[in-house]
Protein backbone atom coordinates (compact mmCIF):
# COMPACT_ATOMS: atom_id res chain seq x y z
CA UNK A 1 0.00 0.00 0.00
CA UNK A 2 2.70 2.48 1.01
CA UNK A 3 4.72 1.52 -2.08
CA UNK A 4 1.64 2.06 -4.27
CA UNK A 5 1.16 5.52 -2.87
CA UNK A 6 4.81 6.47 -3.39
CA UNK A 7 5.07 5.11 -6.92
CA UNK A 8 1.76 6.34 -8.26
CA UNK A 9 2.25 9.64 -6.43
CA UNK A 10 5.51 10.07 -8.33
CA UNK A 11 3.92 9.26 -11.68
CA UNK A 12 1.07 11.73 -11.12
CA UNK A 13 3.43 14.30 -9.65
CA UNK A 14 5.40 14.27 -12.90
CA UNK A 15 2.25 14.67 -15.01
CA UNK A 16 0.84 17.38 -12.75
CA UNK A 17 4.14 19.28 -12.99
CA UNK A 18 3.78 19.52 -16.78
CA UNK A 19 0.11 20.49 -16.51
CA UNK A 20 0.74 23.17 -13.90
CA UNK A 21 3.72 24.64 -15.76
CA UNK A 22 1.65 25.07 -18.91
CA UNK A 23 -1.20 26.69 -16.99
CA UNK A 24 1.05 29.06 -15.03
CA UNK A 25 2.92 30.05 -18.21
CA UNK A 26 -0.07 31.53 -20.03
CA UNK A 27 -1.43 33.03 -16.82
CA UNK A 28 1.87 34.49 -15.66
CA UNK A 29 2.90 35.88 -19.02
CA UNK A 30 -0.38 37.03 -20.52
CA UNK A 31 -2.68 37.22 -17.45
CA UNK A 32 -5.06 34.88 -19.25
CA UNK A 33 -6.91 32.42 -17.07
CA UNK A 34 -7.63 29.84 -19.70
CA UNK A 35 -10.53 27.61 -18.68
CA UNK A 36 -10.16 25.78 -22.00
CA UNK A 37 -6.74 24.58 -20.84
CA UNK A 38 -8.10 21.17 -19.84
CA UNK A 39 -9.92 20.96 -23.15
CA UNK A 40 -6.54 21.01 -24.89
CA UNK A 41 -5.57 17.94 -22.87
CA UNK A 42 -8.87 16.41 -23.98
CA UNK A 43 -8.29 17.25 -27.66
CA UNK A 44 -4.80 15.71 -27.60
CA UNK A 45 -6.10 12.55 -25.91
CA UNK A 46 -8.81 12.02 -28.52
CA UNK A 47 -6.41 12.80 -31.34
CA UNK A 48 -3.98 10.17 -30.14
CA UNK A 49 -6.89 7.74 -29.73
CA UNK A 50 -8.02 8.38 -33.31
CA UNK A 51 -4.52 8.16 -34.72
CA UNK A 52 -3.51 5.01 -32.89
CA UNK A 53 -6.83 3.14 -32.83
CA UNK A 54 -8.40 4.46 -36.00
CA UNK A 55 -5.45 4.85 -38.31
CA UNK A 56 -3.15 2.24 -36.76
CA UNK A 57 -0.37 4.74 -36.46
CA UNK A 58 2.72 4.00 -34.36
CA UNK A 59 2.71 5.60 -30.92
CA UNK A 60 5.65 7.99 -31.25
CA UNK A 61 4.67 9.76 -34.50
CA UNK A 62 1.05 9.81 -33.28
CA UNK A 63 2.18 11.56 -30.11
CA UNK A 64 4.02 14.27 -32.02
CA UNK A 65 1.18 14.80 -34.49
CA UNK A 66 -1.42 14.99 -31.68
CA UNK A 67 0.62 17.57 -29.76
CA UNK A 68 1.38 19.65 -32.86
CA UNK A 69 -2.25 19.62 -34.03
CA UNK A 70 -3.48 20.62 -30.57
CA UNK A 71 -1.00 23.52 -30.57
CA UNK A 72 -2.61 24.73 -33.79
CA UNK A 73 -6.05 24.49 -32.16
CA UNK A 74 -4.76 26.54 -29.23
CA UNK A 75 -3.31 29.14 -31.56
CA UNK A 76 -6.59 29.44 -33.46
CA UNK A 77 -8.59 29.74 -30.23
CA UNK A 78 -6.29 32.51 -29.07
CA UNK A 79 -6.55 34.49 -32.30
CA UNK A 80 -10.30 34.14 -32.77
CA UNK A 81 -11.71 34.20 -29.24
CA UNK A 82 -9.22 35.28 -26.61
CA UNK A 83 -7.35 38.06 -28.41
CA UNK A 84 -10.41 40.30 -29.04
CA UNK A 85 -11.47 40.02 -25.38
CA UNK A 86 -8.02 40.26 -23.81
CA UNK A 87 -8.77 43.52 -21.99
CA UNK A 88 -11.41 41.89 -19.78
CA UNK A 89 -10.31 39.05 -17.51
CA UNK A 90 -13.95 38.15 -16.84
CA UNK A 91 -14.91 37.88 -20.51
CA UNK A 92 -11.85 35.74 -21.26
CA UNK A 93 -12.87 33.50 -18.38
CA UNK A 94 -16.41 33.13 -19.73
CA UNK A 95 -15.46 32.61 -23.34
CA UNK A 96 -12.84 29.97 -22.48
CA UNK A 97 -15.40 28.22 -20.27
CA UNK A 98 -17.78 28.24 -23.24
CA UNK A 99 -15.07 26.81 -25.50
CA UNK A 100 -14.29 24.08 -22.97
CA UNK A 101 -17.95 22.99 -22.80
CA UNK A 102 -18.26 23.22 -26.58
CA UNK A 103 -15.22 21.02 -27.22
CA UNK A 104 -16.40 18.54 -24.59
CA UNK A 105 -19.75 18.28 -26.40
CA UNK A 106 -18.01 17.86 -29.74
CA UNK A 107 -16.18 14.91 -28.19
CA UNK A 108 -19.50 13.51 -26.91
CA UNK A 109 -21.08 13.77 -30.37
CA UNK A 110 -18.04 12.41 -32.21
CA UNK A 111 -17.09 9.59 -29.84
CA UNK A 112 -20.10 9.23 -27.46
CA UNK A 113 -19.69 9.34 -23.67
CA UNK A 114 -18.38 5.77 -23.73
CA UNK A 115 -14.80 5.73 -22.39
CA UNK A 116 -12.19 4.75 -24.98
CA UNK A 117 -9.00 2.82 -24.51
CA UNK A 118 -5.85 3.83 -26.31
CA UNK A 119 -3.79 0.75 -27.07
CA UNK A 120 -0.35 1.14 -25.60
CA UNK A 121 2.67 0.64 -27.80
CA UNK A 122 4.78 -0.45 -24.86
CA UNK A 123 3.09 -3.43 -23.36
CA UNK A 124 4.67 -5.17 -20.43
CA UNK A 125 5.57 -4.12 -16.98
CA UNK A 126 8.02 -4.64 -14.20
CA UNK A 127 7.76 -4.57 -10.42
CA UNK A 128 9.28 -2.15 -7.94
CA UNK A 129 8.61 -3.03 -4.30
CA UNK A 130 5.91 -5.46 -5.46
CA UNK A 131 4.04 -2.69 -7.29
CA UNK A 132 3.38 -3.36 -10.95
CA UNK A 133 4.57 -0.42 -13.05
CA UNK A 134 3.94 -0.54 -16.78
CA UNK A 135 6.61 0.56 -19.21
CA UNK A 136 4.15 3.15 -20.44
CA UNK A 137 4.11 4.69 -16.96
CA UNK A 138 7.91 4.62 -16.82
CA UNK A 139 8.08 6.41 -20.17
CA UNK A 140 5.58 8.97 -18.85
CA UNK A 141 7.80 9.82 -15.89
CA UNK A 142 10.93 10.05 -18.04
CA UNK A 143 9.26 12.23 -20.67
CA UNK A 144 7.65 14.42 -18.01
CA UNK A 145 10.97 15.13 -16.30
CA UNK A 146 12.68 15.66 -19.66
CA UNK A 147 9.99 18.22 -20.56
CA UNK A 148 10.53 20.08 -17.30
CA UNK A 149 14.28 20.31 -17.96
CA UNK A 150 13.75 21.39 -21.57
CA UNK A 151 11.27 24.05 -20.47
CA UNK A 152 13.65 25.33 -17.81
CA UNK A 153 16.54 25.52 -20.28
CA UNK A 154 14.26 27.23 -22.79
CA UNK A 155 13.13 29.88 -20.31
CA UNK A 156 16.63 30.59 -19.06
CA UNK A 157 18.79 30.27 -22.16
CA UNK A 158 16.85 31.19 -25.27
CA UNK A 159 15.86 34.62 -26.48
CA UNK A 160 12.15 33.80 -26.59
CA UNK A 161 12.39 32.33 -23.09
CA UNK A 162 13.93 35.51 -21.75
CA UNK A 163 11.29 37.56 -23.55
CA UNK A 164 8.57 35.46 -21.96
CA UNK A 165 10.00 36.08 -18.52
CA UNK A 166 10.43 39.77 -19.19
CA UNK A 167 6.80 40.11 -20.26
CA UNK A 168 5.68 38.13 -17.22
CA UNK A 169 7.53 40.55 -14.99
CA UNK A 170 6.39 43.80 -16.56
CA UNK A 171 4.71 43.76 -19.93
CA UNK A 172 4.75 47.54 -20.33
CA UNK A 173 8.46 47.81 -19.66
CA UNK A 174 9.13 44.84 -21.91
CA UNK A 175 7.19 46.53 -24.67
CA UNK A 176 9.24 49.72 -24.22
CA UNK A 177 12.40 47.61 -24.55
CA UNK A 178 11.26 46.56 -27.98
CA UNK A 179 9.92 43.12 -27.15
CA UNK A 180 6.99 42.27 -29.44
CA UNK A 181 4.58 41.64 -26.58
CA UNK A 182 1.67 40.40 -28.70
CA UNK A 183 3.87 37.77 -30.34
CA UNK A 184 5.16 36.72 -26.92
CA UNK A 185 1.56 36.21 -25.74
CA UNK A 186 0.82 34.03 -28.73
CA UNK A 187 4.00 31.99 -28.09
CA UNK A 188 2.99 31.58 -24.45
CA UNK A 189 -0.42 30.29 -25.57
CA UNK A 190 1.13 27.81 -28.00
CA UNK A 191 3.69 26.50 -25.49
CA UNK A 192 1.03 26.30 -22.79
CA UNK A 193 -1.30 24.37 -25.11
CA UNK A 194 1.60 22.14 -26.09
CA UNK A 195 2.26 21.22 -22.46
CA UNK A 196 -1.42 20.38 -21.83
CA UNK A 197 -1.44 18.34 -25.03
CA UNK A 198 1.80 16.56 -24.10
CA UNK A 199 0.34 15.59 -20.75
CA UNK A 200 -2.94 14.43 -22.33
CA UNK A 201 -1.18 12.36 -24.96
CA UNK A 202 1.09 10.82 -22.30
CA UNK A 203 -1.64 9.69 -19.94
CA UNK A 204 -4.17 8.61 -22.58
CA UNK A 205 -2.66 5.10 -22.94
CA UNK A 206 -2.99 4.25 -19.26
CA UNK A 207 -6.23 6.03 -18.54
CA UNK A 208 -9.49 5.82 -20.40
CA UNK A 209 -10.32 8.72 -22.70
CA UNK A 210 -13.73 10.28 -22.05
CA UNK A 211 -15.34 13.63 -22.92
CA UNK A 212 -15.37 14.99 -19.36
CA UNK A 213 -11.69 14.29 -18.72
CA UNK A 214 -10.62 17.91 -19.30
CA UNK A 215 -11.94 19.49 -16.11
CA UNK A 216 -9.86 17.63 -13.60
CA UNK A 217 -6.47 18.64 -15.12
CA UNK A 218 -7.62 22.26 -15.29
CA UNK A 219 -8.64 22.36 -11.64
CA UNK A 220 -5.59 20.39 -10.55
CA UNK A 221 -3.33 22.81 -12.44
CA UNK A 222 -5.09 25.78 -10.83
CA UNK A 223 -4.74 24.22 -7.37
CA UNK A 224 -1.02 23.64 -7.90
CA UNK A 225 -0.47 27.19 -9.12
CA UNK A 226 -2.38 28.53 -6.11
CA UNK A 227 -0.37 26.32 -3.75
CA UNK A 228 3.03 26.83 -5.35
CA UNK A 229 2.68 30.52 -6.03
CA UNK A 230 3.08 32.20 -9.37
CA UNK A 231 6.41 32.53 -11.11
CA UNK A 232 8.29 29.93 -9.13
CA UNK A 233 9.37 26.83 -11.04
CA UNK A 234 10.42 24.95 -7.91
CA UNK A 235 7.31 26.03 -6.06
CA UNK A 236 5.22 24.58 -8.90
CA UNK A 237 7.12 21.29 -8.87
CA UNK A 238 6.88 20.90 -5.09
CA UNK A 239 3.18 21.80 -5.12
CA UNK A 240 2.52 19.33 -7.96
CA UNK A 241 4.02 16.51 -5.91
CA UNK A 242 2.19 17.57 -2.74
CA UNK A 243 -1.11 17.44 -4.59
CA UNK A 244 -0.24 14.13 -6.29
CA UNK A 245 0.74 12.41 -3.03
CA UNK A 246 -2.30 13.83 -1.21
CA UNK A 247 -4.53 12.43 -3.98
CA UNK A 248 -2.90 9.02 -3.85
CA UNK A 249 -3.12 8.89 -0.05
CA UNK A 250 -6.83 9.61 -0.27
CA UNK A 251 -7.41 7.23 -3.14
CA UNK A 252 -5.66 4.29 -1.48
CA UNK A 253 -6.62 4.92 2.14
CA UNK A 254 -10.16 6.28 1.91
CA UNK A 255 -11.86 6.06 -1.47
CA UNK A 256 -10.69 6.65 -5.05
CA UNK A 257 -13.86 8.67 -5.58
CA UNK A 258 -12.69 11.33 -3.14
CA UNK A 259 -9.39 11.86 -4.96
CA UNK A 260 -10.50 15.09 -6.64
CA UNK A 261 -12.39 16.30 -3.61
CA UNK A 262 -9.07 16.42 -1.73
CA UNK A 263 -7.47 18.53 -4.45
CA UNK A 264 -10.38 20.95 -4.29
CA UNK A 265 -10.13 21.07 -0.51
CA UNK A 266 -6.42 21.94 -0.84
CA UNK A 267 -7.34 24.74 -3.24
CA UNK A 268 -9.95 26.21 -0.92
CA UNK A 269 -7.76 25.81 2.19
CA UNK A 270 -4.81 27.51 0.49
CA UNK A 271 -6.89 30.41 -0.78
CA UNK A 272 -8.43 30.86 2.66
CA UNK A 273 -5.42 30.41 4.90
CA UNK A 274 -2.46 31.28 2.74
CA UNK A 275 -3.63 33.05 -0.43
CA UNK A 276 -0.06 33.82 -1.46
CA UNK A 277 0.82 30.16 -1.76
CA UNK A 278 3.73 28.35 -0.22
CA UNK A 279 6.46 29.91 -2.34
CA UNK A 280 7.01 32.72 -4.77
CA UNK A 281 4.56 35.44 -5.45
CA UNK A 282 0.96 34.70 -4.68
CA UNK A 283 -1.57 34.84 -7.44
CA UNK A 284 -4.03 36.81 -5.36
CA UNK A 285 -3.24 40.47 -5.36
Amino acid sequence: MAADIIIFGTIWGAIYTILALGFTLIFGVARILNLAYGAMYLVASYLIYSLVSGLDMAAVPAWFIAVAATCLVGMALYRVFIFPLRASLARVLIVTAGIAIFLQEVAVLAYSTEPRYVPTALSGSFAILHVRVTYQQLVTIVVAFALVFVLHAFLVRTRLGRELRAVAQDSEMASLMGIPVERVYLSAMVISTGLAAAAGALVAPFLTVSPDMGWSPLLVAFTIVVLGGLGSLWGTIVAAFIVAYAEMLTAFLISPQLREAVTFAIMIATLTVRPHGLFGKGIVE
Partner: protein
Amino acid sequence: MKYFPTPVHLGLAVAFGALALLPFWIDNPYVLSVLTLAALYAIFASSWDILSGYIGQLNFGHAVFFGVGAYATGFLGPHLHPLLVLPAGALVGIGFAFLVGVPCLKLRGPYLSLTTLVFPLILERLAFTFRDVTGGEYGITVASPLSRIGLYYASLALLLVTIGTLLAVAESRIGRTFRAIGDDDQAAMAAGIDTTRYKLGAFVLGAAFAGLGGVLYAYHLRHVGPETFSLFTSFSIVIMGIVGGMGTVVGPAIGAYFLTLLGESLREIETFRILIYSAVLILCVMLFPKGLWGLAAALRELVSKPAESRSPR
Protein backbone atom coordinates in the same frame (compact mmCIF):
# COMPACT_ATOMS: atom_id res chain seq x y z
CA MET B 1 -43.07 58.94 -1.68
CA LYS B 2 -45.38 58.34 -4.57
CA TYR B 3 -44.97 55.18 -6.61
CA PHE B 4 -44.64 55.50 -10.35
CA PRO B 5 -44.46 52.21 -12.23
CA THR B 6 -41.38 52.05 -14.42
CA PRO B 7 -41.52 50.35 -17.85
CA VAL B 8 -39.72 47.38 -16.30
CA HIS B 9 -42.40 46.98 -13.63
CA LEU B 10 -45.19 47.29 -16.21
CA GLY B 11 -43.46 44.74 -18.45
CA LEU B 12 -43.12 42.37 -15.52
CA ALA B 13 -46.79 42.75 -14.60
CA VAL B 14 -47.82 41.90 -18.16
CA ALA B 15 -45.40 38.97 -18.38
CA PHE B 16 -46.53 37.47 -15.07
CA GLY B 17 -50.19 38.00 -16.00
CA ALA B 18 -49.65 36.17 -19.26
CA LEU B 19 -47.76 33.32 -17.59
CA ALA B 20 -50.49 32.97 -14.96
CA LEU B 21 -53.23 32.78 -17.63
CA LEU B 22 -51.29 30.46 -19.93
CA PRO B 23 -52.50 27.16 -18.36
CA PHE B 24 -56.14 28.17 -19.11
CA TRP B 25 -55.22 28.49 -22.76
CA ILE B 26 -52.77 25.64 -23.27
CA ASP B 27 -53.88 22.50 -21.48
CA ASN B 28 -50.86 20.36 -22.12
CA PRO B 29 -48.97 18.70 -19.24
CA TYR B 30 -45.71 18.69 -21.20
CA VAL B 31 -45.81 22.43 -21.90
CA LEU B 32 -46.75 23.06 -18.28
CA SER B 33 -43.79 21.04 -17.08
CA VAL B 34 -41.39 22.92 -19.37
CA LEU B 35 -42.75 26.25 -18.16
CA THR B 36 -42.38 25.15 -14.53
CA LEU B 37 -38.77 24.26 -15.19
CA ALA B 38 -38.21 27.62 -16.94
CA ALA B 39 -39.65 29.46 -13.92
CA LEU B 40 -37.35 27.52 -11.58
CA TYR B 41 -34.29 28.25 -13.71
CA ALA B 42 -35.39 31.90 -13.77
CA ILE B 43 -35.37 31.88 -9.95
CA PHE B 44 -31.85 30.41 -9.94
CA ALA B 45 -30.56 32.81 -12.60
CA SER B 46 -31.95 35.98 -11.02
CA SER B 47 -30.76 34.97 -7.55
CA TRP B 48 -27.33 34.32 -9.13
CA ASP B 49 -27.35 37.85 -10.53
CA ILE B 50 -27.02 39.73 -7.22
CA LEU B 51 -23.49 38.54 -6.54
CA SER B 52 -22.43 37.95 -10.13
CA GLY B 53 -24.11 40.81 -11.93
CA TYR B 54 -24.25 43.58 -9.33
CA ILE B 55 -21.05 42.96 -7.38
CA GLY B 56 -19.40 41.59 -10.50
CA GLN B 57 -18.02 38.46 -8.85
CA LEU B 58 -18.89 35.68 -11.28
CA ASN B 59 -20.21 32.76 -9.27
CA PHE B 60 -19.51 29.51 -11.14
CA GLY B 61 -21.06 27.33 -8.45
CA HIS B 62 -24.58 28.55 -7.86
CA ALA B 63 -25.73 24.92 -8.07
CA VAL B 64 -24.50 24.44 -4.49
CA PHE B 65 -27.30 26.60 -3.15
CA PHE B 66 -30.26 25.12 -4.99
CA GLY B 67 -28.67 21.67 -4.89
CA VAL B 68 -28.57 21.63 -1.10
CA GLY B 69 -32.14 22.97 -1.08
CA ALA B 70 -33.12 20.04 -3.28
CA TYR B 71 -31.25 17.50 -1.13
CA ALA B 72 -32.82 19.02 2.01
CA THR B 73 -36.19 18.30 0.40
CA GLY B 74 -35.11 14.73 -0.24
CA PHE B 75 -34.08 14.26 3.39
CA LEU B 76 -36.85 16.23 5.11
CA GLY B 77 -39.73 15.81 2.66
CA PRO B 78 -41.08 12.61 4.23
CA HIS B 79 -40.89 14.03 7.78
CA LEU B 80 -41.99 17.65 7.53
CA HIS B 81 -44.97 19.57 6.26
CA PRO B 82 -44.19 21.07 2.82
CA LEU B 83 -44.68 24.57 4.23
CA LEU B 84 -41.83 23.83 6.65
CA VAL B 85 -39.63 22.26 3.97
CA LEU B 86 -39.52 25.57 2.08
CA PRO B 87 -37.94 27.59 4.91
CA ALA B 88 -35.68 24.61 5.63
CA GLY B 89 -34.42 24.79 2.04
CA ALA B 90 -33.79 28.50 2.40
CA LEU B 91 -31.94 27.98 5.69
CA VAL B 92 -29.73 25.25 4.27
CA GLY B 93 -28.98 27.52 1.31
CA ILE B 94 -28.03 30.33 3.70
CA GLY B 95 -25.83 27.95 5.70
CA PHE B 96 -23.94 27.05 2.57
CA ALA B 97 -23.73 30.72 1.59
CA PHE B 98 -21.58 31.20 4.69
CA LEU B 99 -19.62 28.03 4.00
CA VAL B 100 -18.81 29.14 0.43
CA GLY B 101 -18.85 32.88 1.04
CA VAL B 102 -16.38 33.12 3.91
CA PRO B 103 -13.43 31.49 2.09
CA CYS B 104 -14.32 33.55 -0.98
CA LEU B 105 -14.36 36.93 0.77
CA LYS B 106 -10.66 37.59 0.23
CA LEU B 107 -10.88 36.54 -3.40
CA ARG B 108 -11.74 38.49 -6.47
CA GLY B 109 -12.46 37.92 -10.13
CA PRO B 110 -11.28 34.63 -11.59
CA TYR B 111 -10.06 33.27 -8.24
CA LEU B 112 -13.51 33.61 -6.79
CA SER B 113 -15.01 32.05 -9.92
CA LEU B 114 -12.79 28.99 -9.82
CA THR B 115 -13.20 28.58 -6.07
CA THR B 116 -16.98 28.71 -6.30
CA LEU B 117 -16.73 26.26 -9.21
CA VAL B 118 -15.21 23.51 -7.06
CA PHE B 119 -17.74 23.60 -4.19
CA PRO B 120 -20.51 21.79 -6.11
CA LEU B 121 -17.93 19.34 -7.42
CA ILE B 122 -16.90 18.47 -3.87
CA LEU B 123 -20.57 17.94 -2.95
CA GLU B 124 -21.05 15.82 -6.08
CA ARG B 125 -18.14 13.58 -5.04
CA LEU B 126 -19.50 13.36 -1.47
CA ALA B 127 -22.96 12.47 -2.77
CA PHE B 128 -21.45 9.67 -4.85
CA THR B 129 -19.28 8.40 -2.01
CA PHE B 130 -21.65 8.40 0.98
CA ARG B 131 -24.33 6.45 -0.80
CA ASP B 132 -26.14 5.08 2.24
CA VAL B 133 -27.16 8.64 3.10
CA THR B 134 -27.54 10.18 -0.35
CA GLY B 135 -28.49 7.18 -2.44
CA GLY B 136 -25.30 7.55 -4.49
CA GLU B 137 -25.83 8.00 -8.22
CA TYR B 138 -29.51 7.04 -7.90
CA GLY B 139 -30.22 9.89 -5.52
CA ILE B 140 -33.41 10.17 -3.51
CA THR B 141 -36.96 9.93 -4.75
CA VAL B 142 -39.11 12.87 -3.70
CA ALA B 143 -42.88 12.80 -3.37
CA SER B 144 -44.49 16.03 -4.49
CA PRO B 145 -47.21 17.42 -2.23
CA LEU B 146 -48.56 19.47 -5.14
CA SER B 147 -50.25 18.63 -8.42
CA ARG B 148 -48.53 19.59 -11.66
CA ILE B 149 -50.63 22.71 -11.97
CA GLY B 150 -50.16 23.55 -8.29
CA LEU B 151 -46.41 23.29 -8.72
CA TYR B 152 -46.54 25.56 -11.75
CA TYR B 153 -48.29 28.29 -9.78
CA ALA B 154 -46.03 27.77 -6.78
CA SER B 155 -42.94 28.20 -8.98
CA LEU B 156 -44.42 31.25 -10.67
CA ALA B 157 -45.31 32.76 -7.30
CA LEU B 158 -41.82 32.14 -5.97
CA LEU B 159 -40.35 33.68 -9.11
CA LEU B 160 -42.54 36.75 -8.59
CA VAL B 161 -41.42 37.05 -4.97
CA THR B 162 -37.78 36.50 -5.95
CA ILE B 163 -37.74 39.09 -8.72
CA GLY B 164 -39.81 41.50 -6.66
CA THR B 165 -37.54 41.27 -3.62
CA LEU B 166 -34.31 41.33 -5.58
CA LEU B 167 -35.45 44.28 -7.71
CA ALA B 168 -36.48 46.16 -4.57
CA VAL B 169 -33.07 45.46 -3.05
CA ALA B 170 -31.29 46.34 -6.29
CA GLU B 171 -33.10 49.67 -6.56
CA SER B 172 -32.46 50.52 -2.93
CA ARG B 173 -29.41 51.98 -1.24
CA ILE B 174 -28.05 48.46 -0.78
CA GLY B 175 -28.29 47.81 -4.51
CA ARG B 176 -26.43 51.02 -5.27
CA THR B 177 -23.74 49.94 -2.82
CA PHE B 178 -23.52 46.56 -4.57
CA ARG B 179 -23.00 48.37 -7.85
CA ALA B 180 -20.39 50.67 -6.32
CA ILE B 181 -18.45 47.63 -5.10
CA GLY B 182 -18.81 46.08 -8.55
CA ASP B 183 -17.51 49.19 -10.28
CA ASP B 184 -14.46 49.59 -8.06
CA ASP B 185 -14.24 47.77 -4.76
CA GLN B 186 -11.08 49.65 -3.72
CA ALA B 187 -12.86 52.96 -4.12
CA ALA B 188 -15.92 51.62 -2.32
CA MET B 189 -13.73 50.49 0.57
CA ALA B 190 -12.04 53.88 0.66
CA ALA B 191 -15.48 55.48 0.85
CA GLY B 192 -16.06 53.56 4.07
CA ILE B 193 -18.17 50.73 2.74
CA ASP B 194 -17.68 47.42 4.52
CA THR B 195 -17.30 45.47 1.27
CA THR B 196 -16.85 42.15 3.08
CA ARG B 197 -20.24 42.44 4.72
CA TYR B 198 -21.97 43.41 1.50
CA LYS B 199 -20.33 40.57 -0.42
CA LEU B 200 -21.38 38.05 2.21
CA GLY B 201 -24.83 39.63 2.20
CA ALA B 202 -25.07 39.13 -1.56
CA PHE B 203 -24.07 35.47 -1.15
CA VAL B 204 -26.74 35.00 1.53
CA LEU B 205 -29.48 36.81 -0.37
CA GLY B 206 -28.88 34.86 -3.57
CA ALA B 207 -28.52 31.55 -1.74
CA ALA B 208 -31.74 31.99 0.23
CA PHE B 209 -33.85 32.29 -2.93
CA ALA B 210 -31.86 29.55 -4.67
CA GLY B 211 -32.49 27.28 -1.66
CA LEU B 212 -36.23 27.99 -1.83
CA GLY B 213 -36.20 27.30 -5.56
CA GLY B 214 -34.25 24.11 -4.90
CA VAL B 215 -37.16 22.74 -2.85
CA LEU B 216 -39.60 23.26 -5.71
CA TYR B 217 -36.96 21.92 -8.15
CA ALA B 218 -36.84 18.64 -6.21
CA TYR B 219 -40.66 18.49 -6.12
CA HIS B 220 -40.77 19.15 -9.86
CA LEU B 221 -38.22 16.49 -10.80
CA ARG B 222 -39.61 14.20 -8.05
CA HIS B 223 -36.02 13.22 -7.51
CA VAL B 224 -32.71 14.67 -6.38
CA GLY B 225 -29.36 13.23 -7.40
CA PRO B 226 -25.70 14.16 -7.64
CA GLU B 227 -26.16 15.48 -11.20
CA THR B 228 -27.67 18.58 -9.56
CA PHE B 229 -24.10 19.48 -8.55
CA SER B 230 -22.58 18.72 -11.93
CA LEU B 231 -20.45 21.27 -13.70
CA PHE B 232 -23.00 21.80 -16.42
CA THR B 233 -25.79 22.58 -13.96
CA SER B 234 -23.76 25.46 -12.54
CA PHE B 235 -22.60 26.58 -15.96
CA SER B 236 -26.12 26.63 -17.37
CA ILE B 237 -27.09 29.20 -14.73
CA VAL B 238 -24.05 31.31 -15.68
CA ILE B 239 -24.98 30.97 -19.35
CA MET B 240 -28.61 32.01 -18.70
CA GLY B 241 -27.44 35.00 -16.66
CA ILE B 242 -24.96 36.23 -19.24
CA VAL B 243 -27.21 35.59 -22.23
CA GLY B 244 -30.07 37.38 -20.49
CA GLY B 245 -28.00 40.31 -19.33
CA MET B 246 -26.16 40.56 -16.03
CA GLY B 247 -26.82 43.14 -13.37
CA THR B 248 -30.50 43.57 -14.15
CA VAL B 249 -32.25 40.78 -12.12
CA VAL B 250 -34.89 40.52 -14.86
CA GLY B 251 -32.39 39.86 -17.67
CA PRO B 252 -31.14 36.54 -16.26
CA ALA B 253 -34.76 35.42 -15.76
CA ILE B 254 -35.45 36.21 -19.42
CA GLY B 255 -32.27 34.32 -20.33
CA ALA B 256 -33.55 31.34 -18.34
CA TYR B 257 -36.88 31.31 -20.17
CA PHE B 258 -35.18 31.88 -23.53
CA LEU B 259 -32.66 29.05 -23.16
CA THR B 260 -35.06 26.58 -21.53
CA LEU B 261 -37.64 27.09 -24.26
CA LEU B 262 -34.94 27.05 -26.95
CA GLY B 263 -33.58 23.81 -25.50
CA GLU B 264 -37.05 22.22 -25.41
CA SER B 265 -38.09 23.39 -28.86
CA LEU B 266 -35.01 21.61 -30.16
CA ARG B 267 -36.08 18.45 -28.34
CA GLU B 268 -35.63 16.29 -31.44
CA ILE B 269 -32.00 17.23 -31.41
CA GLU B 270 -31.69 16.96 -27.62
CA THR B 271 -28.13 15.74 -28.09
CA PHE B 272 -27.19 19.19 -29.37
CA ARG B 273 -28.62 21.09 -26.40
CA ILE B 274 -25.35 21.63 -24.53
CA LEU B 275 -23.56 22.39 -27.79
CA ILE B 276 -26.13 25.08 -28.57
CA TYR B 277 -25.99 26.52 -25.04
CA SER B 278 -22.22 26.87 -25.20
CA ALA B 279 -22.30 28.28 -28.73
CA VAL B 280 -24.92 30.86 -27.67
CA LEU B 281 -22.69 31.75 -24.71
CA ILE B 282 -19.59 32.20 -26.88
CA LEU B 283 -21.49 34.31 -29.43
CA CYS B 284 -23.02 36.39 -26.70
CA VAL B 285 -19.72 37.13 -24.95
CA MET B 286 -18.06 37.98 -28.26
CA LEU B 287 -20.84 40.09 -29.77
CA PHE B 288 -23.41 41.13 -27.13
CA PRO B 289 -21.66 41.21 -23.76
CA LYS B 290 -24.74 42.83 -22.21
CA GLY B 291 -26.99 40.00 -23.31
CA LEU B 292 -30.59 40.08 -24.49
CA TRP B 293 -31.42 42.85 -22.02
CA GLY B 294 -28.64 45.05 -23.40
CA LEU B 295 -29.74 44.24 -26.92
CA ALA B 296 -33.30 45.34 -26.11
CA ALA B 297 -32.01 48.54 -24.50
CA ALA B 298 -29.85 49.27 -27.55
CA LEU B 299 -32.83 48.73 -29.87
CA ARG B 300 -35.01 51.03 -27.75
CA GLU B 301 -32.32 53.69 -27.89
CA LEU B 302 -32.10 53.30 -31.64
CA VAL B 303 -35.85 53.82 -31.97
CA SER B 304 -36.01 56.78 -29.58
CA LYS B 305 -32.85 58.45 -30.85
CA PRO B 306 -34.45 60.66 -33.54
CA ALA B 307 -36.85 62.04 -30.95
CA GLU B 308 -34.05 62.64 -28.51
CA SER B 309 -31.79 64.42 -30.99
CA ARG B 310 -34.58 66.91 -31.64
CA SER B 311 -34.93 67.77 -27.98
CA PRO B 312 -32.67 70.58 -26.78
CA ARG B 313 -29.63 69.44 -24.80
